[in-house]
């Protein structure tokens, strides 16, 4: 019983710590923010079946996404037309983390 009390305390401490950490936004690019920008900014033009072509992390490898963001071009225009430099870093973190050569989720829907 004492061990479970100890663990309970640890859980609560970890939970509180995490809240604090989540509140103090980190300087590191954020994958989850990147995913959010992808959903809100890019997906309206780039979902499955749309005429501008589906864009998902899977269309490129990690190295290709890095090159893509280094060039910073969206066709002829600048990627900064859509997102700020900082937001693009988040987007890059997301796309690289889920690129075609990254571990993929496995479900029955493919």
């Amino acid at each position: 019983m004492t061990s479970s009390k100890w663990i309970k305390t640890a859980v609560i401490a970890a939970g509180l710590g995490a809240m604090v950490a989540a509140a103090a936004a980190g300087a590191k690019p954020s994958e989850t923010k990147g995913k959010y920008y992808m959903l809100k900014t890019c997906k309206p033009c780039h979902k499955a079946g749309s005429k501008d072509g589906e864009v998902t992390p899977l269309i490129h490898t990690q190295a290709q996404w890095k090159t893509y963001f280094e060039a910073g071009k969206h066709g002829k225009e600048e990627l900064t037309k859509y997102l700020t430099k900082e937001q693009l870093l988040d987007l890059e973190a997301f796309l690289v983390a889920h690129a075609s050569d990254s571990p993929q989720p496995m479900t029955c829907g493919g």
Partner: protein
Amino acid sequence: MKKFILAGLMAALLLPVGLMAQSNEDLMKQIEALKQQLQSLEAKVAAQEKVVAQEQAAPAPAPGLEKEVSNLDARLSKVEVKTGSDRINWGGDLRVGYGYQNWHIAPYQQFTGFNPQTHMPMFQQVPGQDWNNSMDWSLRMRLTMNAQVNDNLKFMGRLSMYQLYGGADVPIFNGSPNTVLDSFNSAKIPNSDVLHVERALMVYRFTNIPFSFAIGRMNTSDGPPLEIRDESERDGTPMAIMVNAEVDGIHAEYGLKDLGLPDGTTIGMCAGIGYESGFGGGGQTAESYTMTPFGVARINGMRDTKVVGLIYDMPLMWMAGNTVNSAEFILGYNRFNDMMDIPYGALLNFPIPGPYAQSSPQYVTATRNLGDMDQYGLTWEHHIGDNFVYFVSGGFIKSHPNGQVSQYGFGGLLGDPNNSRTGSAYYTGVRWKATPKWTLGAEFNHGSKRWYTFTPSAGEPSDKLAARGDVWEGYVHWNFNKNVMLKMGYIHYDYSTAYSGWQIAPANLDYFNLNNNPQLFYPFPKTVKNAYVMLEARF
């Protein structure tokens, strides 16, 4: 060239004007307008010519560049041929595990067979005791593969090897059904150095409707929320608290975005076979006989166990202040029809007591269908920012027994062949990425005394989510380099009731309270302490 174009344009532009001219004034106005058009055209053509001139004046390619390009071309075409003929993309992981286990067994009465004269069951009192396994090394290799067969059809699969160091190639059996080796968990019980087909399925995605259909050996193990503890991507469709097994079946999924639900929301239907009563199953013929502790048993009119399920999956994403929240909400329902007494057909490592408690020498088989069961589940996973996630998951079951009992003496559904019974469980946990290299997590789950779930593929010596009682787990992951981590954890099981994991019990489960010196077929632990360290590389 320029003059020629201009003259042509003039002629073309003036021709209709002449035809329409009504008055001189009109004509003058139109000529003025045409002049302006002509000037702008001249400017455009001049600009065009400038570009052409610049292009012509471009410096010749640097010496050697052409050679370089043709060189690159030759090298690239080799790569193209190679990737073009690589039909399967491979990935995988390798894990070396070390475990320490302590089982505490509370006093119980061990079944020792039947009295030859009176045919009454006999029991021997066993004192409470501890049992330690201080050295338990294992090696697991998994090879993940996929192939895009055509624009619509995708193949996915996983081959797995899982072995104990020094294991005599005999799969362990410790009384928990997740250690009975069969095709539902072949890749999840340490047994030998053989590669098992853990998954092999085809997924067909239709082009114009948000519909997909999958068939084969499905992605039905290690489903949500187990990926949180594993620190990986979602690894299966069904919730781990409901089904964790290598299921051969089908799955159809329909996207619900067009109904105004969040992108990625799906409703899925799946079906599988839990037991095949014909070839490969128990009976060699429609009617046959087998040996049991009670003598010869007649097996007759067995039906397949069929499973049908529904799953609703809804991802959510929103911004709160400067923090992105993402969540997954999952609801599920399964119906198990015609469940068996022993859940499986051929049992390779399952010591059934024969007459007078001799190990049964013959092929072991299910002996009766015991009834049906409904199973409900719910899971909520919520990621707050990049580093924190918590989840809650719950399950509920309701049995519909048909009055039958196992001919081995294992009783009826949930220990009660005559009454519908219910059980429930919940599972909750948090994971916090404290620094980019260190992750901390804690989990708790509880199952009621009649809780049952189909999780043979738990992959651990004890089946956490099937436990009747309380289970605590705490872990630390050290991601010391990209794609390699050291996982250290401790799981503490405190069981309330014996026969955890089994859908059957010899009598009402109230009799198998582990604190009350119960009469048991096998020793069931009261508490299990399991400390583990695992080194895992993902590639």
